[in-house]
């Protein structure tokens, strides 16, 4: 018999209640973890440093309006520009799955600008050698079960081929990981030459330009310089950092994220209240026993520690397990819906710290008031209570 035995036996005083409390804590922190995953997915707050420094130039009116391909050489000539490339939204679907991101790109330029794309040399060479080849982020490959060597048809909602078909076929030549913020991990990249040659319309135009500065000019200056270059032209431009563009894009889904967040937060809060009440009730039932312990010589401080430790023992291991399960669930969802969630669903250190703080808050918030009230009473009053 030691103090831990006392804590442990007290915790299991009413096993069914303890199990239900643990279950509630499990649900709270499982949902909390999913909530955090969603919040981060919609906030895109952890985009890599590269995305903060790359510039994205699109048509001033709308992203769906095209820019002349000739702009690339004009941007490249501007002072302060290190490298420039372009992409275009392809709008393809695989079978009946939702649309995901595919870009026709100039492979060498795009890979050089997006160093976070982790593509092995073997895959890179295979892709460069195959005009109809494509490389794809791992989440997309995992979701659709694609492997290197597969030939996959994509039906574009925008681009028709010169032969009138809107089905484009690509050979998967490589699968890559994204070591950055994940913006590229849900993407399929294929050769611009192949696209340009085969498309029925829009030849000589691209969706947007991606530029990297050489550091000689501040980014704001570079952005202003690019837009000034095309001012008063038929296709004026709007330049921003890639990160700012992504945030703007994510804002379209912001309301969905906000509503989901609100609903989950309400559920988490309600379960927290119920859990806290149950834990507080369990302490209130033991007022008389606190009197017995004090009679035997236990000090208020030691009883306080025993009670708080018991609360922590009830909440912390289960809460951490719940967060682990939630993290596993986020990984499974990311695996299965990787194409729709380029950044994936994940939690960060902040989420873990926030979760631990909530666990502490639930424990202390429910245990402290009754135990402090009990310890303020004198022993005679405690022993008299039933």
């Amino acid at each position, binding site marked *: 018999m030691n103090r831990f*035995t*006392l804590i442990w*036996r*007290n915790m299991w005083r009413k096993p069914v209640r303890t199990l239900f409390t643990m279950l509630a804590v499990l649900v709270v922190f499982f949902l909390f973890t999913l909530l955090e995953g969603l919040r981060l997915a919609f906030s895109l707050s952890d985009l890599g440093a590269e995305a903060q420094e790359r510039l994205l130039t699109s048509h001033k009116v709308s992203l769906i309006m095209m820019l002349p391909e000739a702009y690339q050489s004009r941007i490249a000539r501007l002072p302060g520009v290190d490298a420039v490339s372009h992409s275009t939204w392809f709008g393809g679907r695989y079978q009946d799955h939702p649309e995901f991101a595919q870009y026709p790109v100039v492979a060498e330029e795009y890979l050089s600008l997006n160093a976070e794309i982790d593509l092995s040399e073997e895959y890179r060479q295979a892709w460069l050698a195959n005009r109809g080849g494509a490389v794809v982020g791992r989440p997309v490959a995992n979701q659709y079960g694609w492997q290197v060597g597969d030939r996959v048809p994509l039906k574009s909602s925008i681009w028709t081929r010169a032969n009138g078909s809107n089905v484009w076929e690509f050979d998967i030549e490589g699968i890559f990981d994204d070591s950055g913020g994940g913006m590229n991990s849900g993407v399929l990249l294929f050769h611009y030459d192949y696209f340009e040659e085969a498309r029925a319309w829009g030849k000589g135009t691209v969706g947007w330009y991606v530029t990297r500065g050489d550091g000689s000019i501040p980014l704001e200056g570079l952005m202003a310089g690019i837009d000034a270059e095309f001012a008063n032209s038929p296709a004026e431009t709007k330049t921003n950092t890639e990160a700012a563009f992504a945030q703007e894009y994510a804002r379209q889904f912001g309301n969905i994220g906000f509503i989901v967040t609100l609903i989950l937060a309400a559920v988490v809060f309600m379960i927290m209240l119920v859990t806290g009440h149950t834990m507080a009730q369990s302490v209130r039932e033991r007022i008389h026993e606190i009197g017995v312990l004090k009679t*035997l010589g236990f000090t208020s401080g030691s009883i306080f520690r025993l009670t708080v430790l018991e609360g922590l023992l009830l909440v912390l291991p289960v809460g951490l397990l719940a967060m682990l399960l939630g993290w596993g669930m986020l990984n499974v969802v990311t695996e299965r819906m990787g194409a729709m969630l380029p950044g994936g669903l994940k939690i960060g250190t902040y989420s873990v710290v926030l979760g631990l703080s909530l666990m502490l808050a639930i424990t202390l918030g429910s245990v402290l008031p009754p135990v402090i009230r009990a310890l303020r009473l004198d022993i005679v009053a405690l022993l008299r209570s039933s």
Partner: protein
Amino acid sequence: MAEQLIRLTDVGKNYRKGREAVRVLDGINLGIDKGDFVGLMGPSGSGKTTLLNLLGGLDKPSQGTIEVDGKVVSALSQGALAKWRSGNIGFVFQFYNLLPVLSAARNVALPLLLTSLPASRRKQHVNTALRLVGLAERASHYPRELSGGQEQRVAIARAIVSDPPILLCDEPTGDLDRSTADEIMALLQQLNRDYGKTIVMVTHDPRAASYAHRVLHLDKGELGAAQQ
């Protein structure tokens, strides 16, 4: 001449009941020798339990001093009192006050958690105490699995496990049938006679009081003459 262990000098105790101050004990002067067995009798509300609580450091007097073995315990802080209680006083209550979530052995071991004894020694002490009260074979039983008399024996084992010199018993037979009460009183008598425990016992039962060396009567907070 026996050495005096407990000395109460002009002890009084008031309680506040709303705006009114109620005097429960008044001008108690009392000496209890080491190894004595004192019975405290009196009608309900006469202040017996209050006096026992003061002796055990569960409560503090409103006036006067309580000395135990030369130490003025009525002047100790709550923390110091708790420590003093754990080393000097064993309590036996009418309703046993065992923790329902702990087995008999673990209930008995509770006071030893406040000592620096290693686990093996604590276990040894628990076994000895349970053997002494005749419940060694019930060590793993929970209070709900024991009879009233057995629960009281466990409570007595818990009271003596850390070998305190003083046992304070508040109606120890109040919840027991006559034959069980006799067994419990015989046990207390044995602890007093064979192990030198000084016992102060509150009781309503003259039969239980007859085991004491002397019986003190309290009435309206004042101590009457002692009966030997």
